[in-house]
């Protein structure tokens, strides 16, 4: 057997982990050598990145029914990627979201990741190579943090937003691109007697507007991140703005962690 054959078998038989320590939530994924997902877990990041990484990773092992020694390599990503002591390497969330999406869809694609504190638009060409990426500016308007803030102002559980937007028979227009100014606008709309579901749909539109002003949307659009996982109606609303195909992978919240796990399998194969 040649060395490259042995390496191939090692890659296929091994298991790999990816852990995405985001600003709001930490996600972990375990895959086998073919890229099939064996387990995934999500939990709040909190203030201690390493602790969150340890806990979510242990939970993911239990979910996948896998013991630690079987994991050949782990890659970290996300805001806290440098805080994961057990990761063999780290990549940015931009690379990992792109890599994760390519697992499900062929290029060219435009990835929209709506995260807790930042949004990303990542463009990949027909070979899957990244052409460009954009992150939102310092302001968190249009991100998950924006929706959290607004839910708080409206005294609504976060989990109700998607249903409310979906049930709305219209929407209010919110003009500001500043979270604080938007909050003031929302108060004005409440005072003016607008139904809350129309306000929520207006907030969803505001999220989309912030994304649309970041970059052009070309080719097939793939949406990832926790916001789309919990608010899938956003992808339907995006259809008002583009004729391009719009896809949402299964488990969109863990695509970054999946991308990291896929990199882990590459790292092992490159390093052995």
């Amino acid at each position, binding site marked *: 057997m040649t060395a490259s054959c042995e390496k191939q078998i090692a890659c296929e038989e091994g298991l790999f982990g990816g852990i995405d320590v985001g600003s709001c939530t930490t996600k972990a994924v375990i895959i086998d050598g073919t890229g099939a997902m064996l387990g995934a877990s999500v939990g709040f990041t909190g203030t201690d990145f390493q602790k969150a990484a340890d806990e979510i990773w242990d939970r993911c092992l239990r979910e996948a029914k896998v013991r630690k020694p079987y994991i050949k390599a782990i890659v970290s990503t996300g*805001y806290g990627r440098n805080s994961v002591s057990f990761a063999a390497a780290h*990549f*940015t969330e*931009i*690379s990992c979201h792109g890599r994760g999406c390519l697992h499900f869809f062929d290029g060219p694609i435009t990835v929209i990741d709506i995260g807790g504190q930042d949004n990303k638009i990542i463009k990949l060409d027909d070979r899957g*190579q990244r052409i460009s990426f954009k992150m939102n500016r*310092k302001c968190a308007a249009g991100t998950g943090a924006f929706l959290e803030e607004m839910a708080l102002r409206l005294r609504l559980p976060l989990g109700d937003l998607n249903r409310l937007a979906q049930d709305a028979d219209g929407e209010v227009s919110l003009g500001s691109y500043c979270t604080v100014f938007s909050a003031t606008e929302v108060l004005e709309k409440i005072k003016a007697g607008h139904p809350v579901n129309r306000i929520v749909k207006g907030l969803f539109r505001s999220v989309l507007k912030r994304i649309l002003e970041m970059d052009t949307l070309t080719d097939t659009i793939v949406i990832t991140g926790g916001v789309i996982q919990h608010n899938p109606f956003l992808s339907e609303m995006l259809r008002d703005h583009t004729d391009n195909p719009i896809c949402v992978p299964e488990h969109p919240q863990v695509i970054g962690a999946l991308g990291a796990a896929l990199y882990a399998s590459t790292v092992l194969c490159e390093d052995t």
Partner: protein
Amino acid sequence: MASGRDANRKTINATTEMKKLMASHFTELAEAKRKGQPKVAWCTSVGPAELLHAMGFLVYYPENHGALLGATRMATEYIPIANAVGYSPEICSYLTADVGAYLKGFTPLTKAYGITGLPRADILVYNTNQCRDVQDWFAFYAREWKVPLIGIHTHRNIKEVKDYHISDLAEQMRAMIPVLEQVSGNRFDMDRLRQTVALSLECTKLWRQVLECGAAKPAPITFFDATVHMAPAVVLRGLPQAIDYYKLLLRELEDRIKNGVAAVEGERHRLYWDGMPIWGKLRELSQQFISLKANIVASTYCSSWIFDAFDPLQPFESMARAYTELFIVRDESYKETYMDEWIKSFSIDGIIFHDARTCPNNSNSRYGMPQRISERLRLPVLVINGDLNDLRCYSEEQTRTNIEAFIEQLNEKRSY
């Protein structure tokens, strides 16, 4: 994939000499204020310094002071002081940091050189080629100290420099002479002006050679080194000390090239930086690029202190041309052609645009230029949001992630 965060910059030996030069410059200014002679002129960075030197003034550059406030991370503390007296957080943060520090009686010159306060201006001389903010900045001090404020108004956003631009500016400079004579107590001497222009020309030629060392592979100097070592080209232009210094620096860089010494060990990517430095983050950014094996080998900012047009035979006209040919004065099409040339001759792999919140004139990413250059040269671009001085406009982690992701993109591109 990123490597560790810790990485050390390679020290340029000539730095010791530069520090002595800068100390001597500021000590001389302080001494002049103590004695009352020679008179001190404040000048904008590409103002008519040659004329001021020729008139016997010692020349002080507030923009250098603004950068010092940024580099020492004091700017963000003093900017709000200026905001509170009516200077908006949206205008030049050199201005707001400098005015705020003045209002609180602070200067980083005290810690650096033992100087108790700013060398007060006997006259303030601006050139609007950088922006209008410099005029308003100097006007603050003119009101504060009741000293003369004069300046030249450069034509802006021009594609080609025309004769009427030159004759107008040259005339504006000549018109300053009576006031300068009155304040300095010296008569204008054309021969002295010619000598000063000759010194500026020699300085600028050497500075160009220093920057062109960056074209070597591997490059012996980084953008971050250059932002520090450009100080003599900014504050000692027109003086022989600057020339001696750049000869010394050039020898060291040429030695590095001869011996294959890289400023960034294992240089893998060569980048171009457009826009202002983020003064308070030079060290962190420099270390990040070193750890990523990427070197910013050329920049618009540092090359903006190359003035090829100086000509001792036509001092006024050549000064006017030098101050007008400047990148910042030109229109988008000129700027793009200029950048294309540097990018091609320095074998650039990717371009970083710094969009400085308070410096629109030095932020070239706002009218679609990154997209046009990227498409034309088929090079990846990254726009980072920040500021020259106001770190309230800067997100450390977001910038770090953007840069890391950009280098990952370059790595990926290379592997194809």
